[in-house]
C-alpha cells in the first residue's frame, strides 16, 4: 500500500487514496503509511477530498481563499495527532483557506475547530447552554480543553 500526497498548481490535486497515483511534478511525496495513518485513512481521505474541492480561489462563489498545501499538511498532522478514542470529525473548509474539523451531535452540542494557514488553531463550541471559544498555537496535538469539550459533546 502506498500513499501519495501531491500538489501541483497546475493540477490542483490532493490525494491520499492508496490506489490512486497522482502525476504531480511539484511537491509529490510517496510514503509508506504508518499504522496510525492506516487507521485514519477515512479521515485523511476526507481531508484530501475537501482540500481538492477548495484549492482554487473563490471556491465558494464569494471570494474564498484557496486551501493551500501548507494548510493541508497541517490538517494531516492534526488528524494523525488525534487521540485514538476520539470520534472521527467531519471535515470542511472556510473562506479564509482554513480547514475545519467538526464534532457534531446537534446545534446545541457541537465543536468546530479550524486549522488556519498561519498554524493557529481556533475553536468554538456549544455545549448545551455553555459557550466556549479560543485559539492556540498548533503544537501537533489537540489542546486538552478541546479534547474535554469533544468528549462532553460526543461521550463514548
Amino acid at each position, binding site marked *: 500500500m502506498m500513499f501519495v500526497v501531491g500538489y501541483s498548481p497546475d493540477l490542483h490535486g490532493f490525494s491520499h487514496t492508496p490506489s490512486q497515483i497522482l502525476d504531480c511534478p511539484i511537491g509529490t511525496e510517496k510514503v509508506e503509511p504508518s499504522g496510525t495513518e492506516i487507521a485514519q485513512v477515512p479521515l485523511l481521505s476526507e481531508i484530501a477530498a475537501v482540500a481538492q474541492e477548495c484549492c*482554487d480561489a473563490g471556491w*465558494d*462563489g464569494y471570494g474564498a481563499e484557496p486551501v493551500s498545501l501548507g494548510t493541508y499538511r497541517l490538517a494531516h498532522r492534526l488528524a494523525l495527532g488525534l487521540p485514538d478514542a476520539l470520534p472521527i470529525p467531519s471535515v470542511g473548509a472556510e*473562506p479564509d483557506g482554513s480547514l475545519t474539523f467538526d464534532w457534531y451531535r446537534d446545534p*446545541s452540542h457541537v465543536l*468546530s475547530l479550524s486549522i488556519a494557514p498561519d498554524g493557529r488553531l*481556533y475553536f*468554538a463550541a456549544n455545549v448545551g447552554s455553555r459557550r466556549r471559544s479560543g*485559539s492556540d498555537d498548533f503544537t501537533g496535538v489537540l489542546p486538552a480543553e478541546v479534547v474535554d469539550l469533544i468528549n462532553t459533546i460526543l461521550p463514548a
Partner: protein
Amino acid sequence: MTHDGSEVDPSEPVARFLFSLRRDVRPQDGSIRPERLYPYKYVELSVSVLGSRTPEEIWRAGDAVGSELPEPKPCIGRADLLAQAFYAQALKVVRVESPSDPGHADVTGWPPEKEAQKQIALDIIAKGKPVFVERKLATPTPASE
C-alpha cells in the same frame, strides 16, 4: 466597502447561496455547516434578501454568484433564515446595490477575532435555525428514438 443602503427589517427572510451539498450541508440532519456563515474578506457576510421575488428570480441571483466560481456552476440550494437571526447576535444586515442581485445585502458588525466569528456562526445556526432549501434542477429528458 461602502454601505449606503438601508437596514433590512428583522422579519425579512434572507438567504446564503450554496454550491456543494457535501461541503455545505450536514448529512445527519440537513443543517447548514457553520463555515457557510463566516464573514470574509472584509469582515462582512453577503446574503440575499428574498423579498417578493419569484423562485426563478432568486435562483437567477444564486446562479450569478455561481458564475464567479473557478468552474462556474448553478446554485444547488440556499440557507434561508430571518434577518433577525443576525440582529440577535448584535450584527446588522444592510442593503447594498449589486448589478447581479437586486436583493444583495451585507451582514456587518462582526468582531475581528476568528474564534468569536465561529461562535457567532454556531449561535446563528442554533437559534436562527437556517433551513436548507434544495433547488430542483430540471433533468434533461432523453431524446426520443
